[in-house]
């Protein structure tokens, strides 16, 4: 049956195209501006914050002259941005490595084993998931202080290894896996360890990809933890907490910094996009 393509068809698509462009605009604009020269951006950013009703900011869509000056500055001559960027990479890698070991094992234990207190434990994890950082920071801080880890990178990294949300997400996917998988494996002589490594992990590929990408997005946008735990160590801050500083100082290279920061997230998104969509679709999220 041929579908009719009426006015509504085009209105709907037109509306969605406008939505999509608006949503993508901040990224596009950042990349465009990052190719302006430093002087041009400095002059442009100076027109901000003028409260006179007579004056407008210049309309500025793309660089007047293509220049790699900003990139040259942040990558080669001035290493402030680069050092913060490296901090961000360090946090993300360390957090994701820890989660990669701890989250799937915990989820496996909670979904495919029967042991006393399992449901109680899962309930506690859900409760923890509901609590915002304002609340969970208190237990975290008490332990971190007892261990003497405040004002070190571990204060940011360690509590995030046990992120309740990702345990919940992966567990809900594993619950949906048929038990026959485990039975077949044990008939073939594989114990739980082998089954986990050779069967469960490969089968969970979509949700693990999705969880990794979502968790990376969180790590890449860290704000609360470093601001709270690392107040005395500005040198350990990730780039994400320092952007409004850069914008305020009117350095002229803030857009190249932003573009540099968006790029890895963009690659991660393109790489894991299918996993996120299918992983979340297959998960029993109820």
């Amino acid at each position, binding site marked *: 049956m041929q579908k009719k393509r009426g006015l509504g068809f085009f209105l*709907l698509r037109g*509306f*969605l195209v406008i*939505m*999509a462009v608006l*949503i*993508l605009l901040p*990224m596009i604009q*950042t990349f465009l501006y990052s190719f302006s020269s430093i002087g041009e951006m400095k002059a442009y950013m100076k027109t*901000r*914050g*003028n*409260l006179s009703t007579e004056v*407008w*900011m210049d309309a500025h869509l793309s660089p007047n002259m293509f220049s790699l000056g900003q990139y040259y500055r942040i990558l080669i001559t001035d290493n402030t941005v680069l050092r913060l960027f490296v901090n961000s990479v360090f946090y993300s890698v360390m957090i994701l490595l820890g989660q990669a*070991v*701890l989250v799937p094992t*915990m989820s496996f*234990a909670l979904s495919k*084993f*029967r*042991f006393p207190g399992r449901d109680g*434990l899962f309930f506690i*994890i859900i409760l*923890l998931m*509901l609590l*915002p*950082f*304002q*609340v969970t*920071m*208190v*237990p*975290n*801080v*008490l*332990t971190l202080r007892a261990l003497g880890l405040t004002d070190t990178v571990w204060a940011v990294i*360690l*509590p995030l290894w*046990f992120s309740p949300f990702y345990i919940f997400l992966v567990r809900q996917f594993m619950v949906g896996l048929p038990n026959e998988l485990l039975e077949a494996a044990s008939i073939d002589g594989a114990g739980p360890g082998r089954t*986990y490594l050779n069967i469960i992990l490969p089968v969970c590929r979509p949700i693990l990809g999705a969880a990794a990408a979502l968790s990376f*997005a969180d790590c*890449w946008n860290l*704000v*609360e933890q470093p601001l*709270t735990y690392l107040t005395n160590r500005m040198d350990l801050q990730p780039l*994400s907490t320092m*952007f*409004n500083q*850069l914008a305020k100082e009117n350095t002229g290279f803030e857009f190249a910094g*932003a*573009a540099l*920061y*968006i790029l890895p*997230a*963009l690659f*991660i998104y393109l790489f894991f996009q299918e996993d996120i*969509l299918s992983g*979340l*679709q297959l998960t029993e999220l109820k």
Partner: protein
Amino acid sequence: MYTRKRYVIPFLIPGMAGLLLFYIVPFFGGIWYSVTDGSFENAFVGIDNYRNVWNNPMFQLGLKNTLELSVICAPLLWILSFLLSLLLNRVRPAGTFFRSSVLLPYLMPSSAVLIIWLLWFDFGGPVNHLLNALGASRVQWLQGGELRFPIVLMFLWKNLGFCVIIFMAALQAIPEALYEYATLEGASYAQQAFRITLPLIVPSAFLVFILAWINAFKIFKEVYFIGGAYPDEPVYTLQNYMNNMYGKLNYQNVTTAAYSFAVIVFVLFGILFWIQKRAQRGLN
């Protein structure tokens, strides 16, 4: 399903130990903090800390703003993502491009685009240009109560995609045949929406609502990006208060404020879960 207890040990212990160490045990230990005075003798003071914190105007302000912002953000996010997913569901299979572009901001560091936000909402910036073209006068978006608008917008921009994806997953799980049958029976579009679509996606809709609310409590991020570390009063959140107290090493107040808020969160989600149970039973 494995039933032998010793099998579970290697899988359970590492994660369990961390949860106990960083979350569960200190959570109960913290209760002791909130009822002592933190002096050298660490005397027991009962509910004095709670009385102090609740009478503190900055705590009241932070709590009020956090709750207000979440009451604005969570329902708005929920409704917008539901409407958008209904629209997107109608353009499948060509909806992949739209779906991707809606989800993209969730993966983007909003810290990096905050400069764009500051530009757009500048007094002489594009948003005011647009307002001017529409005949309205300019607004000082980056000050006072108006600050809430760019902050909420940034929150929606960032979180819309994730909610849309969960809604879409639920919508696509509804078999097409149900609608065909309903059309044959002469059910109108509205009837189909309310009698078929809505009951079938109640669990997902509820989940999205909860997730939206969890994220709305995290709105401190956007406040920090746009309003800075010391924001104006209308956007001063509970997290600002906590960071302030933590900076002053006043752990008693931090703990007390956190546990007061935890009680509010649990009561709120308790009510939501209760409503969902009722709604589910009502539909069945």
